């Protein structure tokens, strides 16, 4: 184990490549369905995806549009000229023997994203580039089988945007925050379903350590599909590399994988096995030319991004932590914004806290699909709290029902008998009963022992089965005692 003192002598440098699946209806170069989630293997494959003789790729315009949107979400603008190239290697899940990608003229060049760190500080991470490319198929190697592997080409041809960061990160926390920020931006820009469970976003993490200004030899750990595994990989690699260097050994440039069960990285392929991909411009695809009108149209139609919501929630008065938790669920963030616009900050803040779900380590909350309530109903419910018609505890009980059923909050509150009683006459009757039954406490209050009034209010609440407005109850107790 390395000591913190040794650890501190080293600076880690981290760069991340992120593959984002674009949410197009069809594949990047074919008309086959792009939604492979529940499909039987090799059912979403046409002559292009299968690499039949004579099959030619036809670029999906929607993928280009989403790539252009992503450019804006990465603090950039799409390139007016980009083109596709062939990247060659043999593998059974790569039917044509080459992947169609963008080599030297990608759709996005340059960009930046701000990340928020756990200590509340912010940092800018540079984006080197982002390019469109077709995914390969999926190979599985059944346990115990030495004779065969299985290939599913459903995913072959799925449009990906590969986002390459500058090596601007130095800690696992920064790497995790960057991964999460990309995830949020891709979701808010609506370019990807960004569902980590289905592998819609995959991270390749490059890590090196050095005691000097000169960068050390890096390793690349591929195909991470959670923020946590990004964080753990960075920590593991930093420690592993420092341990090796401290032992006087050298770091090998290599591709590694992450074993989640063992919580460690493992070597997959060394640099010596690296392919010569023999890139050259794909002669089947004319360059992609985007004009100013198209780019301006995309700019105009961009949905609000996480940063827009951060400012908005600050304006509403939500603290940064709550804001991030709300932003983690785009549907909720949009709803809070709507409530704010339709009502006011106070209602928006209350609704935000109502809908806020504590974020687990790996945020991948699937929106509000099960929520039935309308914005109006939530505002109405919030208003009932402000009007003292409901206690905040009772409001939560009503809220659960409204969210589940979408029924009228007032009706629910009545059915559950939760409406606070603000009718003086009715409460006075209860107060009188309570004072009669608790003469000692009443006497104490009269003698100026105001502590006892809390007890009396509690008794009134108990007798009223929680429906009495507590403030009113206290006021009436004092009045009846002549205070």
């Amino acid at each position, binding site marked *: 184990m390395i000591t913190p003192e040794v650890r501190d002598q080293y600076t880690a440098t981290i760069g991340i490549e992120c593959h984002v699946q674009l949410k197009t209806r069809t594949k990047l170069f074919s008309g086959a369905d792009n939604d492979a989630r529940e499909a039987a293997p090799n059912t979403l494959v046409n002559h292009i995806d299968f690499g039949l003789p004579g099959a*030619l790729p*036809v670029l999906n315009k929607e993928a280009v549009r989403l790539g252009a949107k992503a450019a804006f979400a990465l603090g950039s603008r799409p390139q007016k000229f980009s083109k596709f190239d*062939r990247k060659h290697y043999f593998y059974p899940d790569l039917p*044509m023997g*080459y992947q169609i990608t963008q080599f030297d003229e990608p759709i996005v060049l340059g960009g930046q994203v701000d990340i928020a760190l756990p200590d509340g500080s912010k940092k800018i991470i540079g984006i080197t580039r982002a390019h469109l490319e077709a995914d390969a198929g999926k190979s599985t190697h059944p346990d115990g089988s030495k004779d065969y592997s299985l290939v599913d080409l459903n995913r072959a041809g799925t449009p990906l945007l590969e986002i390459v960061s500058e090596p601007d990160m130095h800690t696992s926390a920064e790497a995790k925050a960057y991964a999460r920020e990309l995830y949020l931006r891709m979701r808010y820009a609506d370019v990807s379903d960004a569902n980590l469970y289905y592998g819609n976003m995959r991270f390749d993490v490059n890590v090196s350590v050095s005691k000097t200004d000169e960068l050390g030899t890096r390793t690349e750990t591929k195909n991470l599909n959670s923020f946590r595994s990004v964080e753990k990989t960075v920590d593991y690699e930093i420690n592993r590399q420092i341990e090796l260097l401290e032992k006087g050994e050298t770091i090998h440039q290599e591709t590694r994988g992450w074993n989640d069960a063992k919580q460690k990285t493992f070597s997959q392929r060394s640099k010596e096995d690296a392919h010569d991909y*023999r890139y050259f411009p794909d002669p089947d695809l004319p360059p992609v030319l985007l004009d100013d009108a198209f780019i301006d149209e995309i700019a105009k139609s961009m949905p609000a991004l996480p940063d827009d919501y951060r400012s908005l929630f600050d304006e509403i008065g939500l603290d940064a932590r709550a804001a991030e938790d709300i932003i983690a669920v785009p549907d909720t963030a949009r709803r809070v914004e709507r409530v704010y616009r339709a009502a006011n900050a106070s209602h928006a803040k209350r609704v935000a806290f109502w809908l806020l779900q504590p974020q687990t380590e790996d945020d991948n909350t699937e929106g509000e699909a099960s929520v039935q309530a309308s914005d109006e109903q939530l505002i109405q419910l919030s208003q009932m709290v402000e009007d003292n018609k409901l206690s905040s505890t009772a409001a939560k009980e009503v809220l659960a029902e409204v969210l589940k059923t979408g029924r009228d909050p007032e009706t629910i509150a009545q059915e559950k008998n939760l409406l606070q009683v603000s009718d003086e006459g009715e409460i006075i009757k209860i107060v009188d009963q309570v004072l009669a039954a608790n003469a000692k406490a009443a006497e104490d209050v009269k003698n100026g022992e105001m502590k006892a009034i809390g007890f009396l209010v509690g008794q009134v609440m108990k007798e009223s089965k929680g429906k009495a407005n507590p403030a009113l109850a206290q006021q009436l107790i004092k009045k009846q005692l002549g205070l």
Partner: protein
Amino acid sequence: MSVWQPIADIAAKVQAGELSARQLVEQSLAKIAEQADYQAIIVTLDEMALARADKIDQAVKNGENVGRLAGVPFIAKDNFLVFGAETTAASNILKGFTAPYQATAVNRLEMEGAICVAKANLDAFAHGSSTENSDFFTTKNPHDPTRVPGGSSGGSAAAVMLDMAPFALGTDTGGSIRLPASFTGSVGFKPTYGLVSRSGVVAMASSTDVIGPLTRTVDDAALVFDVMAGRDELDSTTIDREEAYFPLNDTPLKGVKFGRITEYMDSEGLDSDVKALIENAIEKLKAAGAEIVDVSLPSLPLALAVYYIICPAEVSSNLSRYDGQRYGYSDPSATTLDDSYKMSRAHGFGKEAKRRIMIGTHVLSSGYYDAYYKKAQTVRTKIINEFNDVFNKVDFLLGPTAPEVAFKIGANVNDPLKMYLTDIMTVAVNLAGIPAISIPAGSVDNLPVGLQLMAPQKHDAALLALARKTEETVA
């Protein structure tokens, strides 16, 4: 004289009920059988063709319009995918592969009533100038069976001259339509790049591959081309057709300005008898009122070198899908994935395919890309610019299609460089993407010689009209 009438006449007679499509298909199949010794055909599609013919005949009886190529039989080079037919590109690695979809060009011909009766031989994957690179057999020249028919569309050209069908389809990547046209005395038209969809045609070099007809007359070529031409959403490199290609205008030769390409006409490699025939054609054009001026495109001598970098680069990439994993030949004795790749490709590809894969892989590999591929693209741009410049001075270019007449079978098989030199007068056109046509200009000892005419990009209609006039004038 051919047994076949002009294609437009055949179609008109089928539509009128004077000829039956079945009769035409049977006639075509009979000719193929009769001339089998020439080995022009890989496979005939008897049943499919006859079934289509009967459908067309029935439609005629029902009074339906059956199209501009009604009942006209044709032969497709075996690198065209024809639905339900074996498509091998004359390669062992694709042996047994049945096409599950169909080339756009074939679709368009069928929609106008044409019927594919057979698939023609070629140099495997269209790599070659003689059909000797076919993994199956060599096609013989209809004028002298000891000689090659040219290539790579040699089977198609021979089939037309052997009267097997009124027309055949070819592909031209570096001269593969025009050269066999020259060697067999047929008309071979290579359109502007992008005017005919490449979808469903086994790719050779994607940036220069074009599809075109082989026929006996320019009129026939124009009609077939007119049916096939135009944008196809399955091929992103196709362009809109801006003009009609049939019927052709009757353009006078008077006032037309031809450029006589000195790099070709004064080339040392040009056979003197071939040169004499081209000069004779030039004299006839002059007599008809055309103006002929000498023009020079100084980079033309580099075209072959450029072509044999760019073409193999694209070939090496396009052939990587033939890996023995999904269709076609897969070596049954391989026990590991790596072996399966290596052995399937080692045994499935012929010598020439391997040679081009090796060259192409080399010129694209890191460290060599700039020296070869990139430099070749730079020179390619220079050639394009020189063509553009010269077309500012003249309307059309002319020269021989090939430096010599058809050579003997076996004469060049051990000298790939000499074989490549056969394409020396055709490849520049492919690099520039301009249209060109080879038409018969006479014979040397009964062996045909082709006159090559070229036009600026998208001037295909003018080129065809001029070629028809030249055809009349020179004959």
